[in-house]
């Protein structure tokens, strides 16, 4: 425990240095929030497995590692370094160790009216700063989550995306968060996406590390606001190195009749925890949470999702599949809250886990909290090895056991990939899934 406590102390000391140094350029309102957030982090400290929300996931390794907050300027990376992580030739924002890398980004090539920049730049620009102030830190619950608090305390940069009413950002905007792993760094990238009434946007967040980097920790928070009638597809790929740590929150708030699709592919990091908190805050909103985790080695990945039906006539469909091999451990916790008055809620949750070895483990926990009476809520989860009947069926058609196993395993992923609507993104995700599973060409 003393190690964990001293871990907390280190971040308080780092914050004092940060507040006197890099943080000085921030607007006063943000400085206040940071002060509150670090105070909250000091109170909460690093979570332990005694806490229900962290039962299956120990973050002791993060608390005990002496990570440093890298001082800018960030190291220069050539365009070659980011190439393997890009999907298309569209606009992109590249964040290296938590800081915007202008020379790697092509944010200026966005459609008219759409604003894409670094968050730090947005906070220095009058109009954007006012907009950011209206949203930033208002959704992600730093008062409850120590990691969101830490991210908020060290909030300095990330991506800023504003799609004004009725505008369209159809070619997916790529936000690439790259860690260099130099000097055991921790970064706290913070992203704000605001899609206004009737607008459409597609965004891909990719978390990765450059090769040869040492252990690093990415502690990310993204807040996504979906305005009335707006349509947003948010893709997220986490492919950090096996020595790395990743803690992240994706926080969304949807207004009336909006649509949000969140598509998650978790492949990387030795220890990963992703909280997805989605609030359906306007009648008739629709949410699709569509996730896949493929784990091997000694990887541990924990997905905690909270879908909050705060208003009537909203629909949420959640599909998370996991393929867990070797000694890896997958955790899924899916909480659905239906608030009083959220009548005619339609909510469906499934979590299926395929275990590829006897040492692999998956824990699946649905949590339904329903406070309205006219609702349709279903959930189901499975954990187990390949179904012998499926295997036999494929073999009876001439497929070798190896091919049959490959197809059945790939099927777990393909089911999730099939819900991704942007063909170029889906193709890239499919390639990553096939690489991981060693499955042949379609």
């Amino acid at each position, binding site marked *: 425990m003393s190690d964990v406590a001293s871990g907390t102390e280190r971040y308080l000391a780092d914050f004092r240095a940060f507040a006197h140094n890099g943080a000085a350029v921030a607007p006063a309102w943000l400085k206040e929030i940071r002060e509150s957030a670090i105070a909250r982090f000091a109170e909460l400290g690093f979570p332990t497995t005694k806490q229900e929300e962290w039962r299956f996931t120990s973050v002791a390794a993060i608390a005990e590692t002496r990570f440093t907050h890298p001082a800018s300027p960030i190291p220069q990376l050539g365009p070659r370094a980011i190439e393997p992580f890009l999907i298309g030739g569209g606009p992109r924002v590249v964040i290296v160790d938590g800081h915007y890398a202008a020379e790697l980004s092509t944010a200026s090539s966005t459609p008219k009216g759409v604003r894409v920049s670094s968050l730090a730049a947005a906070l220095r620009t009058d109009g954007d700063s006012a907009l950011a102030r209206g949203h930033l830190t208002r959704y992600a619950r730093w008062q409850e989550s120590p990691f969101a608090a830490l991210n908020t305390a060290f909030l300095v940069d990330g991506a800023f995306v504003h799609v004004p009413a009725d505008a369209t950002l159809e070619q997916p905007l790529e936000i690439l968060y790259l860690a260099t792993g130099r000097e055991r760094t921790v970064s706290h990238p913070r992203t704000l996406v605001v899609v206004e009434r009737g607008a459409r946007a597609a965004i891909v967040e990719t978390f990765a590390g450059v090769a040869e980097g040492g252990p690093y920790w990415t502690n990310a928070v993204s807040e996504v606001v979906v305005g009335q009638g707006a349509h947003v597809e948010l893709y997220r790929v986490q492919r950090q190195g096996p020595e790395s740590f990743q803690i992240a929150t994706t926080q969304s708030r949807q207004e009336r009749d909006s649509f949000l699709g969140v598509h998650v592919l978790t492949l990387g990091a030795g220890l990963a925890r992703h909280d997805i908190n989605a609030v359906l805050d306007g009648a008739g909103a629709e949410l699709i949470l569509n996730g896949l985790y493929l784990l091997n080695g000694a990887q541990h990945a924990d997905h905690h999702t909270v879908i909050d039906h705060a208003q009537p006539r909203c629909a949420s469909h959640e599909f998370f599949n996991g393929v867990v091999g070797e000694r890896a451990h997958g955790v899924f916790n899916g909480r659905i809250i239906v608030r009083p008055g959220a009548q005619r809620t339609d909510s469906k949750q499934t979590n299926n886990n395929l275990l590829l070895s006897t040492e692999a483990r998956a824990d699946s926990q649905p949590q339904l909290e329903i406070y309205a009476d006219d609702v349709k809520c279903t959930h189901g989860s499975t954990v187990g090895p390949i*179904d012998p009947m499926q295997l036999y069926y494929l073999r*009876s*058609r001439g497929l070798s056991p190896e091919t049959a196993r490959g197809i059945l395993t790939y099927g777990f992923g393909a089911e999730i990939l*099939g819900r991704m609507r942007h063909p170029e993104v889906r193709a890239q995700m499919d390639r990553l899934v096939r690489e991981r599973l060693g499955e042949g060409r379609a």
Partner: protein
Amino acid sequence: MTENVLLQVQDLHATVEGREVLRGVDLTVRAGEVHAIMGPNGSGKSTLAQVLAGHPAYTVTAGRVLYEGKDLFGMPPEERAREGVFLAFQYPVAIRGITNAYFLRSAVNAIRKHRGQEELGPVEFMDALEAKLEVIGWDSSYLTRPVNDGFSGGEKKRNEILQLAVLDPKLAILDETDSGLDIDALKTVAQTVDKLRRPDNATILVTHYYRILTHIAPDVVHVLAGGRIVKSGGKELALELEEKGYDWLREEATVA
């Protein structure tokens, strides 16, 4: 006579979960023939079909099966399929995430590879498939759906027949493919099976009902009861069963 023999089942005994279900089955199927295997529920009809395909839950305890003169039980299920044995499942298995087209092409290519033929690419395969789809009265939308996932009972059975048409086996075993089909679907399925008849292939129809045999005339009808074939005859036997049921045979078997 023996040169046309495709399948020879000799004194076959099999158990499932320790229970003996097949108690000495003898059956000879020649190329060009259609055999119907009928019998009451629990007589071992489906067990026979599954044992021939290689279902892992069944254990063969005695007897042997020669397929084209080779020991069938010496081959794992995939090898039987590649050598031309096909079982249309009574309860086809759903596979999420894998499209019917991908599944079918994987199966076709596994068999082509085994025969030393070149594997088909997606485009060539789709061309070859179009014609087969037409035969069973399906449009190509079924190809992009996951294998049997969310299919109705009738759709699943049709999908088995599509696989049969695409894989073109030497020995097709249809395990109660007719049950659960409405009259029109039954007709389509039966006509497809009938069209696939050739002098060099054979079909075993495992069925509970007479009606499919009005579309596919069997050369031989067998009655399986208590894990044994208790009576064999021409197609008039099926009609007799339709009229009299199975009880009279049970009595006959008991007396014998």
